[in-house]
């Protein structure tokens, strides 16, 4: 089988709010000093899901990592290669920049069609920067494949994908015929940490770079030119709350003072 893992490099989501800054003139996040961009955590979990299926099958299943982004996104690809994926493709082109979820999905879909023999695509439930959670679905629509979102378990065998997905009040198990797309949620579990030896092996694995020419994409249909959603403003919401710390000589005094406040505010 041939699996694709979609991987996105993002600003480190562990950047503390105090170091998180926005350039209001460009509507872009200013990279925080001391925080390197990382593989979006959910994409690491998606890679883990693909690897476990490959390992359980014990066959010659191939896993290709796709990432659309700048040259620096090589690091995200290398990380998934170190986890155990086989090949990487960086989709890098000025024409891809400034796009939205729709244009990202179009580029990824073109790359997947270009690979030709893909059985399943694994995406994270959302990228931990924009938190939209829609590229996996749009990709499935572009490929005209079924999609299961928010997976906490995925199995693939005999041409069928069996997914247990997270609902508001529980879980449901669904089956779909391959080829199919799945988006994997944090409930799946932690991704593996590559060992040093695997990181060194990953350095030798092939990563090709593809542009709109390689994918026969009209540059006017992707990136900023093809975006359907226009970012008007990116801003840090202002908090109008000023915390009142409740003082007291003992926890009992503090607790009673707090409850008195809550009663005065008619919350209790």
């Amino acid at each position, binding site marked *: 089988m041939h699996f694709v893992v979609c991987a996105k490099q993002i600003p480190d989501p562990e950047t503390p709010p105090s170091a998180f800054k926005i350039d209001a003139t460009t509507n872009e996040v200013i990279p925080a000093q001391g925080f390197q961009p990382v593989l979006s955590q959910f994409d690491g979990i998606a890679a883990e899901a693909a690897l476990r299926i490959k390992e359980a099958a014990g066959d010659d299943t191939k896993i290709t990592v796709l990432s659309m982004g700048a040259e620096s996104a090589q690091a995200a690809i290398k990380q998934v290669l170190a986890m155990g994926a086989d090949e990487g493709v960086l989709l890098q082109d000025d024409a891809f920049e400034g796009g939205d*979820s729709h244009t990202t999905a179009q580029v990824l879909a073109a790359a997947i069609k270009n690979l030709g023999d893909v059985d399943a695509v694994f995406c994270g439930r959302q990228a*931990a920067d924009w938190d*939209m959670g829609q590229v996996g679905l749009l990709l499935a*629509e572009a490929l005209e494949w079924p999609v299961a*979102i928010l997976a906490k378990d995925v199995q693939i065998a005999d041409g069928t994908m069996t997914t247990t997905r997270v609902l508001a009040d529980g879980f449901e198990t669904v089956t779909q015929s391959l080829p199919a797309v799945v988006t994997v949620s944090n409930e799946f579990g932690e991704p593996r940490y590559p060992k040093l030896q695997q990181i060194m092996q990953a350095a030798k694995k092939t990563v090709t770079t593809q542009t709109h020419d390689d994918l026969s994409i009209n540059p006017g249909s992707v990136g900023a030119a093809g975006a359907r*959603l226009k970012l008007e403003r990116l*801003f840090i919401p202002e908090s109008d*709350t000023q915390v009142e710390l409740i003082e007291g000589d003992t926890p009992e005094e503090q*607790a009673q003072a*707090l409850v008195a406040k809550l009663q005065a505010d008619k919350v209790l």
Partner: protein
Amino acid sequence: MARNILVVGELEEGALSSTTAELVGQASRLADGGQVSVTLLGSGAGGAASAAFEAGADRAFTSDDGGYDDYNSDPWVGAVENAVGQASPDAIFVAQSVVGRDMGPRIAARQGSAVAMDCINVEDDGGELKATRPCYGGNAQATYSFATSPAVATIRAKAFDPIEPRAGASGETVDLGAPADSRTTITGRELAESEGLQIQDAAIVVSGGRGLGGPEGFETVEALAEAFGTNRAAVGASRAACDLGWYPVSQQVGLTGKVVTPDLYVAIAISGASQHMAGCSGSKMIIAVNRDPDANIFATSKYGIVGDYKAVVPALIEAVKAAG
């Protein structure tokens, strides 16, 4: 400018969901003389249509077919596409729910348009719809306009108030027929164990985080929720605590868990990471107990106690009980 708006409705135990009423209400505020339509699929849809008319809808596209009861992507998308074809909406509103997370992008793709997910506001800005949503784990918010039509938005529960019910209002009902075939077969459903009050419905949510130091810390958190009253208080947990296996994922509050909007949110030993705040920042009031006076949670709390929860929370339990 008049605009037609279609709301993808949802039923809860056969009745109009509260979020659908909120979405229909906001649609009626933004329609400006245009028509507000709603789709209602599954057992009880016919009765829910009356509630939708009272909530602000002019037209209901319904099917009472029980085949729609368990959400399945393809037949739902097909039915909504059918309604879109008849209603020609300028905008489509969907709840940010298990249904909406799946439907929003698919409907947008099929209409050749775009969706803004998880919106907390959709408003008219000089005749143009603008959608605002949290991003970067809640560190930032983004406002979008749409280059294509219809503008699709999935909208968070309680982002809008419903309108005052229009008693006795009626409207046109259009039948959407039986569900189409699906590429997806649902082979099983399992409800997570959760007794009593659901966390999204609770007036008070008491949550614990990594600072509890272990699963046994949740016994104290639960005892505080109990002191507030099991009929109105529920227990939540941060992602860190759930990832460590200290508390069930079904109670996780945050961007990737439940979004709660109680009257009072009590954060015990929670640092207040942005992704957690994204799940509770809509609370009417947040109070926090944390050992670290610089913890981010205090930045959004109205009241705080700096101290060890092991000392503070038992005292709080006694004080709440004494207050009756």
